[in-house]
C-alpha cells in the first residue's frame, strides 16, 4: 500500500493572523508556522493504514506545497514516522487559490506512485474544506471525504476502502476502491507524538524538492495573477468592545436570558 499524505503548513492557530498589504495574501512570514492540525490526524491515519497493511513496500510519503519555511512541517511529519517527503516549492505558486492548488497537487501526485491520498478535511487558515473533493475530481478517483473511521480491505490488486463519513445527523457509510482520496476529521484518531529517535531519523529521510516545471505544472495555471478568486479589500477586525456587566440583584437570570435572546442565541 502506497500512501501520500498532503500536509499544509499554516500560521500558528493561536497567533493573530494578518493579510499582507501588498497582495492581500496570508502573511506567513510574521508568524510561526505549524503543521495544520487536521493534517496530523491524516498522517496518523496513514501510518495506521500502513502499519496494518504491513509489507516492506507499504510507504507513507508526505506531499507539501508551500514556501521554504514549510520544510519545518515536513520534518515534523517525517519524525512522526512518514518514510519520505516531496516539497513542491516554487515562487510561481504564491497566491494560488484552492482550485489552482488542487491542480498543482494533482500534477505533483502524477510524479508519484500511490494507492491512497490522505488529507485533513480542512486547514485552519483558509477553512474552505474543498481541496480533497477537488483533488479527487482532478485525479478521477474515488472521493471518500470527512472520514471519522477508515477501513481498508484486501491487499492485492483492487482494494476496497470503506469510511464512515461524519454528517450533521450522524454518519454515512461510503465505500470506494483504490486509488482513492480520503479526508479525515479529528474524531478519527489521536495523533502520536514523535519520538526523539524519530526526530533524529527524520533528518536522514529522503526529501525531494519539485519546481512547477518538475511537476509539469503550467506557470499560467497557478499563482496570484491567474487565481480564479481575488481578495478585493479587507479591514482589520474591530477591537473587542467592553462587555456588559450584569449585577445579580435577584434579576440576574432573567437578564442573562434576555441578553441571549437579544443576540438570538436562544
Amino acid at each position, binding site marked *: 500500500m502506497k500512501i501520500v499524505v498532503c500536509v499544509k503548513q499554516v500560521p500558528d492557530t493561536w497567533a493573530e493572523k494578518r493579510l499582507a498589504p501588498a497582495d492581500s495574501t496570508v502573511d506567513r512570514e510574521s508568524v510561526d508556522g505549524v503543521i495544520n492540525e487536521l493534517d496530523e490526524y491524516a498522517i496518523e491515519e496513514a501510518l495506521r493504514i500502513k502499519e496494518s497493511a504491513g509489507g516492506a513496500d507499504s510507504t507513507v510519503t508526505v506531499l507539501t506545497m508551500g514556501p521554504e519555511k514549510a520544510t519545518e512541517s515536513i520534518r515534523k511529519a517525517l*519524525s512522526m514516522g512518514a518514510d519520505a517527503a516531496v516539497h513542491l516549492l516554487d515562487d510561481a505558486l504564491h497566491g494560488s487559490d484552492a482550485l489552482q492548488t488542487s491542480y498543482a497537487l494533482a500534477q505533483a501526485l502524477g510524479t508519484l506512485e500511490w494507492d491512497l491520498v490522505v488529507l485533513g478535511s480542512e486547514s485552519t487558515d483558509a477553512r474552505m474544506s474543498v481541496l480533497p473533493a477537488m483533488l479527487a475530481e482532478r485525479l478521477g478517483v474515488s472521493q471518500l471525504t470527512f472520514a471519522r473511521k477508515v477501513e481498508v480491505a484486501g491487499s492485492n490488486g483492487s482494494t476496497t476502502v470503506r469510511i464512515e463519513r461524519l454528517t450533521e445527523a450522524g454518519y454515512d457509510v461510503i465505500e470506494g476502491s483504490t486509488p482513492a482520496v480520503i479526508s479525515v476529521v479529528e474524531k478519527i484518531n489521536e495523533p502520536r*507524538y*514523535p*519520538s*526523539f*529517535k524519530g*526526530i*533524529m531519523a527524520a533528518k536522514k529521510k529522503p526529501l525531494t524538492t519539485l519546481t512547477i516545471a518538475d511537476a509539469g505544472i503550467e506557470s499560467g495555471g497557478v499563482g496570484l495573477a491567474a487565481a480564479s478568486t481575488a481578495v478585493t479589500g479587507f479591514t482589520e477586525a474591530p477591537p473587542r468592545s467592553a462587555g456588559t456587566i450584569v449585577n445579580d440583584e435577584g434579576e440576574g437570570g432573567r437578564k442573562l436570558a434576555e441578553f441571549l435572546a437579544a443576540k438570538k442565541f436562544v
Partner: protein
Amino acid sequence: MPVERALPTEEAVALLELTRELAAGEVAPHAAAMEERGDFPREVFCTLGEAGLLGLPYAEEYGGGVQPYEVYLQVLEELAAAWLAVGLGVSVHTLACFPLAAYGSAQQRTRWLPEMLAGNLLGAYCLSEAGSGSDAAALRTRAVRQGEDYVVNGSKAWVTHGGEADFYNLMVRTSEDGPRGISTLLAPADTPGLTPQPPERKMGMRSSPTASIALDDARVPVGRRLGEEGQGFSIALAALDGGRLGIAACAVGVAQAALDAASAYARERRQFGHAIVEYQGISFLLADMATGIEAARALYLAAARRRDAGLEYAPQAAMAKLFATDTAMRVTTDAVQVFGGYGYTRDYPVERYMREAKVLQIVEGTNQVQRLVIGRSLTKP
C-alpha cells in the same frame, strides 16, 4: 513563557521542543488531580518511554539517547516544572539505570539495559535504611552467598517508586568491612521475599510513591550482582553524584513554575487601582525569585558541563543541589506570598510547589550532607 535556552546542538533543540510538547499535553494536565488523589502516573512514564525520554544520557547500542548531562538535565527541568512527581521519577529511573550501565558486564547490559532505557521497566534505587540515611555506609541489610544465589535479609527505606518499580538496585552488606563491605544487586520486583511496604504518607509528591522494601530470605542470583563484591558503596556514590544534578534540575523546574504562576498572577491581580506587579513590594520579590532561578540554572549547567567534559564534578554537583533546592524553597514560599490568601489554598498550584520544594532539600543527600561533601573537597590534600 517558555525558558529560552542556549542548547549545544540542533538535536537538543528538537528534544527540548518535544519535551515541552509532552509536558504541556501529557504531564501538566494530570498533575493537580492525581496529586490530590495520590495516584501514580504509570501511563505518563510509558508515554515518555515511547518518546525516548527515559534513557537520555546512555549509549545508543542499548537504546539510549546519547545526550550530554547538559541537555538531559534541561529535559528534567521542563518535566519537573510540569509535575515534580514525573521529573523526579525520570531522574530516579535514570539514576537506577546507572549502576548497570556503568558497572554491569557486557552480558548483563545486553540482557537488561534496553528494556530499562526504553521505559518498559521502571527502576528504583535502594540505599537508605531506617537507621542509615546520611550515614549510608552504616547499612545493615545483609546478603549471604549460598551457592549461586545471595540470600538477602533486612529492609531498605525511602525507596522512590517502591511498589511500582519493576527492578530494584539493592545496596547490601556482603562483609563487615565498612564501606568496602557493600555490594550492588539488581533485583527484579517479582523476587520472592522482596516485599514493598505501604507507601509513606507524605506532605507532597503524593503521586510519587515512597516505600520501604522488606527483604525476607530474598534470593538474588549472583549473576545479578553489578560490579565486584565490595564495590557497591562506590557505585552508590557515583550514581548519587549524577542524581544530585537531577535533583538540582528538578528544583529549578519547580521554582520556574512557581515564578511563572506568581508573575502571571501579579499582572492580573489589581489592588488600589493597579496591578500588584506595579508595586515594588511585589516586583522586587519577583525580581529576586527570577535572579535566584537564573543563578541556580547556571550552577547546575556548569556542573553538568564539567561532568560531560570528564572533569571531577562531585563538589560542583553538591553545590548545585544545595543552591538550587534552597532557592526553590525560597522561591515557592515567596510565590505563595505573592498570591496572598489564595496562594494558601488548593485552588492554585503554588501551595503544591511549596510542599514539593521541601522534599528536594532532603532527598539524595540532605543539604547538610551537601555542605559536608563540599567542605571535604576543600580540605582534601
